């Protein structure tokens, strides 16, 4: 029994010759909200399906709330709420009827069942369609009914496979707020393709690509990294490069010609210094005109691109 809400250790899943998931390892502490990222076909859904016990792993161990997904499948299922990617629903049932049915299957006590259904209808903003047939709902409503179903038994762990796909921008924000409210009391593993969403609500991010884990870390850590200095100036690139490189605290200057005599220079700085003003003044004093002077912090999008294209896959 571990105190991790989710623990995945050396997980491997093969579909015949295709290795969908290759020795993945990560842990999620209770109450954590984790963004699970990766390109299509990276193995996100496969990993999630293994965690929900729907699929067996080829090898490796996965536990949810300390229960093994293979041996304690029932206990695992009692503790998770799962929103699959395509949100399959029975078209002939009504929203309220469906949620009540799911609550019964998930053994929500009769005394609190009705209030749970009401809470979830409210939380997921599907109250106004409670009497509609599921088959006639729009994509956005289906998605939110699926989320309400995942929440109905108030599970400790929520596994959400693209909970915001098909929603409009306002609904996305509302849904993300709902999910963010759950963090702390619930452990949430959330997969999505929309990076600003993750930046908005998740601190921790796991990126997998082609079945392997590429990055697992905190976005605050990313923000702590020293930003890169950017400078655009007109003049001979080599001369300006030397001027910049001479300044104390500057390492690794690279230059790139942009257009008619203007070049872009990128320089790494030492930690704790902002050398923009100094460098700007020196370049100006050397007789060149400065067009742009800026810092570039590494954001999730840059990280994601790097990691997925396996450039600079610095694991944390």
């Amino acid at each position: 029994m571990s105190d991790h809400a989710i623990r995945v250790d050396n997980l491997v899943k093969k579909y015949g010759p295709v290795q969908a998931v290759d020795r993945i390892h990560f842990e999620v502490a209770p109450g954590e909200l984790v963004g699970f990222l990766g390109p299509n076909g990276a193995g996100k859904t496969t990993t999630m399906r293994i965690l929900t016990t729907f699929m067996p792993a080829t090898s490796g161990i996965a536990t949810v709330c300390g229960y093994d997904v293979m041996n304690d499948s029932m206990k695992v299922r009692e503790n998770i709420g799962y929103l699959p990617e395509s949100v399959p629903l029975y078209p002939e049932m009504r929203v309220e009827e469906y949620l009540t049915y799911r609550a019964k299957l998930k053994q929500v006590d009769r005394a609190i069942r009705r209030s749970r259904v009401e809470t979830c209808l409210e939380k997921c903003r599907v109250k106004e369609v409670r009497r509609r047939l599921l088959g006639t709902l729009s994509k956005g409503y289906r998605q939110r009914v699926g989320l309400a179903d995942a929440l109905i038994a108030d599970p400790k762990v929520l596994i959400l496979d693209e909970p915001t796909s098909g929603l409009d921008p306002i609904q996305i924000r509302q849904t993300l707020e709902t999910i963010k409210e759950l963090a702390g009391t619930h452990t949430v593993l959330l997969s999505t393709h929309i990076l600003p969403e993750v930046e908005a609500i998740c601190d921790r991010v796991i990126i997998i690509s082609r079945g392997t884990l590429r990055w697992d870390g905190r976005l605050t850590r990313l923000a702590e990294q020293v930003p890169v200095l950017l400078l655009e100036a007109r003049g001979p690139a080599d001369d300006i490069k030397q001027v910049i490189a001479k300044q104390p605290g500057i390492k690794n200057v690279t230059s790139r010609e942009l257009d008619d005599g203007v070049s872009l220079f990128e320089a790494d700085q030492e930690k704790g210094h902002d050398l923009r003003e100094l460098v700007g003044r020196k370049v100006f004093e050397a007789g060149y005109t400065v067009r742009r002077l800026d810092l570039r912090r590494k954001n999730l999008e840059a990280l994601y691109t790097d990691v997925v294209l396996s450039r600079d896959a610095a694991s944390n």
Partner: protein
Amino acid sequence: MSSETFTGAPEQAPSAMSEDQASTARTIGLTGLMAVVLGTLVLILNAANARLPLELGNNVGFAGIVIGIALMFYHASRDNDQLVRRLYGYVGGLGLPLSGLILSLLPVIISCARPAPDDGPKVIVSLFFPFGWACFLAGLFFLIPFCKNEPEEDHRRYGVLGLGGIGAGLALTGLIGGLAAGSFALTYGVVLSLLGLAYLCAYINQVGGAELDGYRPALAMAGVGVLVFAIALIRSCVGGDRPYFVPTGLVMISLGLSYAIAALFMVSDLTIIVLTRRELLAYFCSPIAYLLLFLSALVAAATYNEFVDQLASTNNVLLEPIVLYFYLGGLYAAFMLVFQIPALTMRMFAEEKRTGTYEVLMCAPVSETPVVLSKLIASLAFYMLIWAVWLIFLLDIRVESGKAFDYRPLISFYLVLAVNGAAFLAMGIFFSSLTRNQIVAAALTFVGMIGWLAPYFIIRGQPENTTKFLVLKHLSFVNLWVESLQGQLHLRELILQGSVVVFWVFLTVKVLEARRWS
């Protein structure tokens, strides 16, 4: 900016495409209306002894009305214009039961008011049979789609209140009257109570199932059922100068029990019952189920026709067991089954796997065995409903001929049908669990059904003492049916069929569990 500033208008349009005009449904509905009008006309003209160039019996009139109303049911549930559906709801759903009430009560009042004839007691008549109960039954079928599809809460409330009110009225009249007078129980009481039960079940379903507002009505229904059961049981035990248990007591006990069981079925939180309820709901929401019911009625009608011809050719003298000639006069019933079983079971797992609802289902803490059993129970319930249609024709034989026949073989026959049907359905469910394609599942089940039917034809006309005959006789379900319709049944045959059920259920559970091994 916080999201509170954006409280966008709720979405209205569904993403799914739907037809703008329900032209097919309307054509069907109007055809139905015409059939009803013509049927009624025939009945009226016949009643008035009108001389027509063409002789049309009352049967034609009744057939016209029945077929017409069936077509109108279809239209009532399919039309996408709210006003048309509302019209059906009010006229069909509330008007028909009202006319049923008038037809049942008015003749009673009139005949009570008339002075008694000199040579005997007053004759009190009621048109409950054959018109009243048919009106109530038809009204139910109009009310259910009305309540289901009506989006406006005000109108819907009338429909739901109608269901509950009519149901309570019918049930109380039937049960109290049945308890008060034995002769009433055996005729009007049974039909009234069963109609009431159907109405009340629909009512509880429409107010949100036993979960939401239906819980108290369901408990009340169970209470009434238990009360009736207890009173009938006590009266049967106490005894009097005339035996009460058979005939009246047993009927009242079964009615009370069926109320209690139906209510418990709707209230229960047992996983398997929750799953079964959903499966049944899925059946009643799919057109294929109604198609199967219609097909069954059609086959029963063809068989009935043949039976009547046979009866006419033998000068209305037929040896018992009559029911054998009715059910198996031709082999239509057996052939019907070959098509029906695949249609009933192909959906089961194939559909859930294709749409992905299976994944959602199995991510809830539910194990495979209840899932398989719930599908089996639901399909078996529907299968028995298909066979219940045949009983209506038997009722007609009884009414038309005015002679009693031996109905006891029916008990053994329906027992065999249930066990035997479970074996076929379990096979179909197994094939459905193998694939995500319904057509493949249906084709495999069809082949399986041919396999079950084959032994009957192989051994037909063969000498009876060969080993082949003895073995195949046990495998041939037609032979089993014949035996049971003759009022004979070996327990070993039921055990054989039962073990086949267990075999297929076991295989299905293993196939489903295999998903978690590989």
